[in-house]
């Protein structure tokens, strides 16, 4: 069996697939990628990689209509193709189970493993697939995944909650100290109501996989236990996190006694500077909110810092402390595309809520530290 393909196409395909390949050897075959022409149209093969958590498949155009079903070591293959000097690569599969990669003046011989051992990706019915704006969705992923919990002891919080209701899609993440919620409006007729938890890694990998795509939309399909995303011939399948996500709507404050309007980037820079002196244990940074200025202070074993930032306020002065790291995480996200933001507060022990001055489809909530 022989196939021929464009080196460039193959490289792109492998680049997409290889991030799903297991790098720790659970099963030897999971270190390989599957090349298969089964269930596919003439002139194409699928390349599939998976670590049993997520799976990525991509479609590769091949010259001839050969029947292929074999796995090849992913890492070596990717390295070879990355450095391959010629425009096309010829694969020659041997009876004994090895494969030759042939160029004009070079030949590699790789050992393979049989395709029968390679796990099948879970089947996700795409009848109910709906579309999301690709760039908005990628932004929503960046805006929420940072707030997920890293502690696997509470697995529900390690994922992002995705709710669909009345054509509104809401992504939310919290680790118990902060909450990030992003709303998206769906373009086409959104189908059913939906409430699932998608692992953080799935979304991070998805964003990486599709953000360069020259497409406007990404397709999403959901079953009880799996989710599938599809863009530009690439398909990412992942399991969902089982469980019931906490109802964060209840904890979002409805009214605020104090409001602070600020320029996002200058405040972020000021916080970053003052945080240098924050305690390495507690990371406490203090906001003294005055009528027209915000005084940021921090101090610990090694010294103190103080910086004042011009702001516009409404309500009484307030003194409130935050974990500097959490605060910077939030401000960094806003600094990406909100020149001015609004910080809303009630008291020094109640949550602070931040959103962009221009639109309120994205909200972050942050618990203060008790003084």
């Amino acid at each position: 069996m022989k196939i021929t393909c464009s080196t460039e196409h193959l490289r792109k395909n492998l680049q997409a697939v290889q991030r799903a390949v297991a790098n720790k050897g659970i099963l030897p075959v999971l270190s390989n990628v599957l090349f298969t022409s089964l269930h596919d149209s003439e002139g194409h093969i699928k390349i599939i990689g998976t670590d049993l958590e997520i799976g990525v498949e991509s479609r590769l155009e091949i010259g001839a209509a050969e029947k292929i079903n074999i796995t090849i070591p992913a890492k070596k293959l990717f390295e070879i193709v990355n450095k391959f000097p010629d425009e096309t690569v010829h694969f020659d599969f041997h009876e004994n189970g090895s494969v030759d990669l042939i160029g004009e003046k070079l030949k590699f011989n790789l050992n393979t493993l049989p395709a029968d051992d390679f796990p099948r990706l879970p089947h996700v019915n795409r009848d109910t697939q709906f579309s999301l704006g690709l760039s908005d969705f990628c932004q929503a992923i960046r805006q929420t995944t940072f707030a997920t919990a890293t502690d696997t002891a509470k697995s529900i919080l390690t994922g992002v909650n995705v709710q669909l209701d009345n054509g509104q899609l809401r992504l939310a993440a919290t680790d118990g100290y902060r909450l990030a919620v992003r709303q998206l409006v769906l373009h086409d007729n959104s189908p059913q109501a939906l409430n699932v938890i998608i692992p953080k890694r799935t979304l991070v990998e998805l964003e990486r996989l599709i953000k360069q795509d020259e497409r406007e939309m990404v397709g999403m399909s959901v079953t009880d236990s799996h989710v599938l995303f599809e863009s530009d011939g690439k398909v990412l399948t992942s399991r969902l996190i089982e469980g019931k996500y906490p109802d964060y709507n209840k904890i979002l404050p409805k009214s605020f006694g104090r409001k602070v309007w600020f320029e996002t980037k200058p405040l972020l820079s000021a916080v970053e500077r003052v945080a240098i002196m924050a305690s390495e244990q507690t990371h406490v940074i203090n906001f003294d909110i005055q009528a027209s200025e915000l005084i940021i202070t921090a101090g610990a074993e090694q010294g103190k810092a103080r910086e004042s930032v011009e702001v516009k306020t409404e309500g009484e002065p307030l003194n409130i402390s935050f974990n500097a790291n959490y605060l910077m995480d939030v401000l960094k996200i806003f600094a990406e595309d909100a020149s001015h933001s609004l910080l809303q507060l009630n008291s020094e022990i109640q949550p602070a809520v931040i959103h962009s001055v221009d639109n309120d489809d994205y909200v972050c909530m942050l618990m203060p530290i008790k003084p």
Partner: protein
Amino acid sequence: MKPIQLLDAQVANQIAAGEVVERPASVIKELVENALDAGATFIQVEVDQGGRFLRVVDNGFGIPAESVGLAFQRFATSKLQSFEDIWSINTMGFRGEALPSIASVARVEILTRTADQDIAKRLVIQGGEIIENSSAGGPVGTSLTIRDLFYNTPARLKFLSSETTELGYIQQLMQAFALGLPEIGFKFVKKGKTVIQTSGQQSLSSVVRQILGKDLADSLYTVSHETPAGLVQGVLSYPDCVRRDRNYQFLFVNRRWVKVPGITKLVDDLYADLVPKKNFPVAILQLELPAGNVDVNVHPNKKEVKFKHFSQIFQLTREGIQNSLSRYNFERSASLGPPVVDSGAAEPTPLTVPTVSTAASAMNPVKASAGNAFDDDDEIPPFAMPLPVVQPSVQEPAAPVYASPLAPAPVPVQPAGPSWAPELPTRPPQVLELPDLKITPPPAPVEAGAPLEPVSALGQACDYTYIVAHYGNGLALLDQHVAEERYLYEELLEQAKILSQPLLLSVVIEIDEIERGLLEENRKAFERAGFEWEEEGPGSIAIRAIPHCLRFAETEATFKEVLLELRESGVAKVYLESFNRLCKTIACHSAIRAGDPLTLEQMQKIVQNWSKTRNPYTCPHGRPILLKFSKLELNKRFLRTW
């Protein structure tokens, strides 16, 4: 009915023997103590036949020929003239019961000569009767041979344990004597084999090495502490060298081997958060107390004593051990990195009294009665204990010994006086000198800011469980979890109030009535630790805030664990104890875990923090933190020995 009669002497002695002569080991104890009182500097003990054959030979004063027979009469003693004397005895035997009691239940042969006599006296006594009285050749001193112990008291004979056990008791006793009295030469011959032999010229450390082995001896530190209450001296093992039993814990009070449960408990408590549960250090302690302050007349076998001012003696011993333990820690940390130089920052900030809002007091109506002992905020002492030691009792003042820790060099162990190994034959004053033990006066405190960092992390090993680090010119493995746990624990303990992180999502946990009670009783400790909660329903509470360092996901586990511990410990009402437990549990649930991948920078941070701790050896639950390999050791393993 039989008429009441006076018991004849033989029966009376046999009954007394039951008290004094419990088993072969108690005979040996009596005889060795007699020998010591006779000024012996060398004592040889031979045993055989499961303890029924015993011989004690000493080089003491001997008994004058004319009074040898008297020694076997009940209440005959050379040591007391009047009842008042009994309060100030400095000798070991005094009740005058031992020899006649033994003689009543065995065949005894005594051979004794004093220095001013040319010929020795030989007496054979059986069943209390002198059956042979002759003169014989013999050295100065006394030799007592006991054959067929309990031959005429079959009941007692039946209750003797196996040979191994009985001889084992005697061996333990002889170990105790040899360790406790290194200035006396001991030879212990068990079934014809010499098991223990000390010269009486050795230092304690060499006796320890000889009896307990080199490895153990190398992990001992000395204790020497004197107050008006008395003097405590001895050796204890470091927390990283402990045993599963207390077989190597010996206490001598005025050179008498005794058991004092209070002191045993004290040693346990001092090591409580340094070693795993049910592990005990080696501890050989000598207390020198004014004779009038000790009552040894509690029990005929004199194994128990009473103290006049036990709290003083308790404190003396505690301070002695704590001083040395903390000095040892200081030395270690000095060799690891800059010591904790507590500058102004160490000044304990007063506890900020949480303003009791009306809502809070409504929620907590039983507070006044539940926490009566601790309601007064003044009662909460600033918690600045360098050595995280469980306070043995509430009444004790909060560790005044440590008021200003470590910085001023503690009193060096360099007694100018006479040594433990004395010039013979005069009985020396009991001053310890342990030249072989590597206890040097602590190095001068390293100046703050002087960067010296002999520990630096290299990477992680074994599925991200251990940090591999340069350690001096050797190598070390640190358990990353416990290393950070130790650091966090010490940090937390020092906080007047642990910073509280309110939660976005409160954690609801179910509690029963007992737990609710415990929570109320310990509300202050929980609040100081940064926890806040509200009633949620009849059987549950909602935790609203947690200590800033605690992992959110561990909230419930931490809370439940502390409640369980409080429930089991029964000391739930001791504020400091509860806070201490909380800190331990919080530290454990806050620290990075085995399996967490770390950047080199994070590892470096953990190692640096750890090197500043006061006890870098074990985690608060007693697990070891550090495993080190010297270059020499590694060279040996690689046969790089040129």
